[in-house]
């Protein structure tokens, strides 16, 4: 038994390095996707202190809108532009209907409001586009679909899906763009000001409402990109919701306000989960992917309550 837990998995890793590499790659891709969802959370949390539970659903909703429009005869690129428009309308609507009236409420109320938003988006998305799973229009959008197999060692083979590579590249571009946006632009500076202190930001003439709308829109764009990438790997449907929850442990690892944290946290969870499932999952009957991420995050939190990149919390009275 002890052998199975402590030694055998590592022997397997050593003996079948190609399989191990493949697992690492899978973990990497899953991690990138988790990180992208977490990124959307971080954007909104930084600027408004709202823990946006609906981020995962926004991913599905964006993907569903894109595919649904295309199914109804809209050309792919036009559908993409229209979807961006829809996310803009959603951002404006959320700011107007949810955020503005609920400003200054306790965290839990805002959290509940975003859960309410989650329900609304699920119902709305299914009502308009139907509840059955859909195929992502990967090719129509000009994204690569093939795969390349690398030979590894004497008989090993590692297969990389092109779409996964594209996902990684897009993720990097998006994080870089956000970084520039946050640090180099006027709105970015306003965003950081709002994140630090709402009232102080208001007092120097920053419009909270405008900032919130922008942030929700940015999160919507991130969600759209994530939705496309994710949809390309599996179907687009609200069943993805459960997977979207995985972004939460990622946030815990990385801290709610750190963009690099979201990326690193995503990768840790992605790797940890795939490796854990494939090498240790069999010992307890498999399927541990559904909770492993949370347990990793929980254990981690016990030792470092402020997350990977958070500052040490000094409690004051």
């Amino acid at each position, binding site marked *: 038994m002890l052998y199975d837990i402590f030694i055998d998995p590592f022997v397997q890793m050593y003996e079948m390095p190609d399989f191990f590499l493949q697992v690492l790659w899978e973990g990497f891709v899953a991690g990138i996707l988790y990180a992208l969802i977490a990124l959307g959370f971080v954007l909104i949390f930084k600027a408004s202190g709202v823990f946006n539970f609906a981020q995962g659903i926004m991913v599905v909703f964006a993907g569903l809108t894109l595919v649904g429009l295309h199914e109804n005869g809209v050309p792919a690129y036009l559908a993409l532009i229209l979807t961006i428009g829809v996310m803009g309308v959603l951002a404006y609507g959320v700011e107007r209907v949810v955020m503005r009236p609920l400003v200054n409420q306790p965290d839990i109320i805002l959290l509940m409001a975003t859960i309410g938003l989650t329900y609304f988006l699920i119902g709305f998305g299914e009502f308009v586009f139907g509840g059955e799973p859909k195929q992502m229009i990967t090719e129509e959008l000009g994204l690569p679909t093939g795969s390349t197999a690398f030979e590894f060692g004497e008989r090993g083979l590692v297969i990389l899906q092109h779409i996964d590579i594209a996902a990684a590249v897009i993720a990097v571009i998006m994080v870089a763009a956000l970084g520039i946006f946050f640090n180099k632009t006027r709105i970015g500076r306003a965003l950081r000001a709002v994140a630090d202190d709402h009232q102080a930001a208001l007092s120097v003439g920053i419009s909270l409402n405008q900032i919130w709308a922008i942030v929700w829109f940015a999160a919507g764009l991130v969600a759209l990109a994530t939705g496309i990438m994710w949809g390309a790997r599996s179907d687009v449907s609200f069943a993805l919701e459960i997977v979207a929850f995985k972004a939460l442990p990622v946030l815990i690892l990385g801290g709610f306000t750190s963009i690099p944290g979201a990326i690193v946290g995503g990768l840790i969870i992605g790797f940890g989960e795939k490796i854990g499932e494939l090498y240790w999952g069999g010992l307890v009957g498999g399927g541990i992917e559904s909770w492993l991420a949370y347990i990793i995050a929980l254990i981690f939190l016990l030792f470092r309550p402020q997350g990977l990149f958070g500052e*040490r919390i*000094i409690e004051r*009275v």
Partner: protein
Amino acid sequence: MNALVTDSSMTSAEAETQVERELLLRVDNVSLSFGGVKAITDISFDIQKGEIRAIIGPNGAGKTSMLNVINGFYHPQEGTITWQGKVRRKMKPYEAASQGIARTFQNVALFKGMTTLDNIMSGRSLKMHKNFFWQLLWRGPAEQEEIEHRRKVEDIIDFLEIQAIRKTPVGRLPYGLQKRVELGRALAMEPELLLLDEPMAGMNLEEKEDMSRFILDVNQEFGTTIALIEHDMGVVMDLSDRVVVLDYGKKIADGPPEEVQANQAVIDAYLGVSH
């Protein structure tokens, strides 16, 4: 009124202090830092039983940190704290509370969702012991205990003259009254040592006068030892028996008010002299 101070059953720790009756608390060479920032550097002073001890100093001098050290919320890296003749080990805040250290806060830290009555009752938590199953039943011992302590709490309410707001949620009270309720909550613990962190901050003259009177009454009627942080020098000079002055985390003076008032280092600290 006497009901308030009857609880001090003789514990072994107290029996020992009979020998060294005067000293309630002594702080020796305490240093505290957060990361690289030194909040308190090598401070020693003592608090005698029954006195009003003021801790003063400019903003950021480490006064509140000092109180936090005394009631176990921060753990100093160096130095010892002697409580009633015994060197205290590193302890949790609730242990300090059960040894008889009560506290009010610079920014009012009342339980906002509860009424004045419940807030003051919460100060009795340590003295109530009926377990969960009695609480489930309510009728009988739990109710008896509740009534017993309610009586003491009502004494405090009378003392502080806040009968009218007994059942008002504290969140709705004006600032001055909140401070008063907070004092009541600390008094309900029947403490040996009462730490008051700027009890008069943000008050107008009348409220300050009221509060000063309450503090003196607490000290004289109940014999409670008080350590007090305050910025209003007039109040400090009038109320306190002895004053310790901190500046940049260091002790610069210690003694009776008049002496401290005349101390050149203290004057420099307040008026600002280049260091």
